[in-house]
């Protein structure tokens, strides 16, 4: 096990710069998730940690040792690829034992380690099969088995769940998290799915366009997003943003509706008001929301509509029976409100 330090990493492909100076410190044993939309540079960063991509500028250290010039095989890391990258001509057993075989491990050691990994992952019955004969979830587990038999210093996961169906993804999510709790190996996990990030991470690094937007625990990011991008990216359904200005008793949107704000914002300032759909509540005589679409999910009802001129999404625990075009009264709480600068997108309330 080891810590991973990423300091001032830059990377360009031709004239396109994909990473503009990234700094992340990952503690020993931590489960760190790099999350961001497609093309934000998160996979490139992971591949640089693995040594599969040359480092443009800055340095990466694993366990205190700078590895910029260390070839991948000497970094003592294991990686799970998005397409699993299992060797199709080898059985599950040989796939998992490959790194041990290359390292010249005695047969007894190979058998024991592969057996242990298969046991942890429930692969015992599949050891003599070929990857083609496995389902997606089983292949995923073999890829993880191949990583854990090595007992590496760091696990790297590159969007490992994106080829699985929704239900399996939820199972594997829990399985990977359980595996990390059991093995305690430092893990860097890349995903574009913020739910994966929220549910699995000790700490999340939100990236966009080659820059780190915010680093924090899942709840820090949810409760106190540093800027409008993080606020919109973390949380599902996404946060509502309302354009308007700060007034004496709150925030007035462009339709004239006044939203509650905690004290501290300077009146007269144009800003973006943020409120999560699940933080809206039904309130008799509250702000009138014209309903366009109702989406009952059973556990909650999502209502798409608008207040004044601003489109708005609300998620309510109650079951709501209104026809499109009718209005419902909604309310928000000051302590759950967010305020962002209209131009820079930075968080305004502390």
């Amino acid at each position, binding site marked *: 096990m080891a810590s991973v330090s990423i300091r001032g990493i830059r990377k360009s492909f031709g004239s396109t710069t994909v990473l503009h100076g990234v700094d992340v410190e990952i503690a020993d044993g931590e489960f760190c998730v790099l999350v961001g939309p497609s093309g934000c540079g998160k996979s490139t960063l992971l591949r640089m940690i*693995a*040594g*599969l991509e040359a480092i443009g500028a800055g340095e990466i250290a694993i366990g205190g040792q700078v590895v910029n010039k260390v*070839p*991948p*095989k000497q970094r003592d*890391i*294991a*990686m799970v*690829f998005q*397409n699993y*990258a*299992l*060797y*199709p*001509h*080898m059985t599950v057993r040989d796939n998992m034992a*490959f*790194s041990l075989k*290359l*390292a010249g491990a005695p047969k007894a050691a190979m058998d024991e380690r592969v057996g242990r990994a298969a046991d942890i992952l429930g692969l015992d019955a599949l050891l003599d099969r*070929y*990857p*083609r*004969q496995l389902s997606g979830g089983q292949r995923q587990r073999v890829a993880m088995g*191949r990583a854990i038999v*090595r007992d590496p210093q760091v696990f790297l996961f590159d969007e490992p769940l994106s080829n699985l169906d929704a239900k399996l993804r939820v199972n594997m999510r829990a399985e990977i998290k359980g595996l990390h709790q059991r093995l305690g190996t430092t893990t860097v996990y890349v995903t574009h799915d913020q739910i994966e990030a929220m549910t699995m991470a000790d700490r999340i690094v939100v990236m966009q366009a080659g820059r780190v937007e915010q680093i924090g625990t899942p709840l820090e990011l949810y409760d106190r997003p540093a800027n409008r991008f993080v606020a919109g990216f973390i949380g599902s359904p996404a946060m509502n943003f309302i354009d308007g200005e700060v007034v004496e008793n709150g925030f007035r949107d462009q339709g004239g509706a006044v939203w509650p704000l905690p004290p501290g914002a300077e009146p007269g300032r144009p800003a973006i008001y943020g409120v999560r759909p699940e933080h809206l509540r039904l309130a008799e005589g509250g702000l009138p929301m014209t309903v*366009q*679409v109702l989406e009952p999910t059973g556990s909650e009802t999502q209502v*798409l509509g608008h207040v004044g001129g601003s489109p708005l999404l609300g998620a309510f625990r109650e079951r709501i029976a209104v026809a499109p075009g009718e209005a419902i009264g909604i309310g928000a709480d000051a302590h759950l409100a967010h305020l962002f600068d209209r131009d820079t997108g930075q968080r305004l309330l502390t």
Partner: protein
Amino acid sequence: MSNAVREGVLPIAEAHPWRFTTREPTPLARLFDNKTFLVVMCLTPAVGLLVVFLTYPLGLGLWLAFTDAKIGRSGVFVGLDNFDSLFHDRIFWLSVTNTLFYTAAATVGKFGLGLWLALLLNHNIPFKSLIRAIVLIPWIVPTVLSAIAFWWIYDPQFSIISYLLKAMGIIDYNIDFLGTPWHARLALVAANIWRGIPFVAISLLAGLQTISPSLYEAAMLDGASSWARFRYVTLPMLMPVLSVVLTFSVLFTFTDFQLVYAITRGGPANATHLMATLAFQRGIPGGQLGEGAAIAMAMIPFLVAATLFSYFGLARRRWQQGEADE
């Protein structure tokens, strides 16, 4: 959300009076929908070509091999006489060993160099597509044309190889490439390798490109050196393509005629005759159709052996089989 949907309007159907209609299929269209008709229709040209240009000549050759036909005389059935005389014919046996040597040496050379070239082209090297085009040239040039070029290269007086070696001071006499048996055999093997490399290189390159780069990355992280990546990833993954290409290459080389006939005509003193050139030599210029056909027929056991090898060697490997459980 658009205003149209919000206000309950369905604008698309009202945009223009045109409507979708279903049309009756024409009788011709219905005929082509008939599966039996379609099968017969599609197979007839192929089967016809195979029968006329493959089955008939093969059958005729087989018949001629058991007759004493000469040019201008249809001949009578003589049983195994032709094969009996070939069995005691030193030149025939020389052509058999020549063919085996030629096939073995050329195949080894083609595959060694072809695989090396394919691996090289599979990397990101500058001017890759230009190089790939250049690699194809030996294959595109008509065989006889390249044979003439080699004839010049191997010319006893004007050979560029002799000229260069002399200029470098390595030798002080012209090499007689085509005048001595072993020089001639090796010269032909070299020419065949040159001609065969593109087929091998481009086919293997296609095979290499189907190997996912992430397998190499996974192997790299697993601690594989470049040799180990070749040995444990590239080679086994390439095996299916490699064995197909190998079989084809062996068949083509074994039956090669043009290159040898154009460069040496089997000389000097029959030393470079392959079975194919000897069959032609005896059958057409020599007029002994029966004997020529018998030599050609004698190639069949070797070809069948190569085909069987490919049949069993190519049987889909277990790891290639589908997703189903055992």
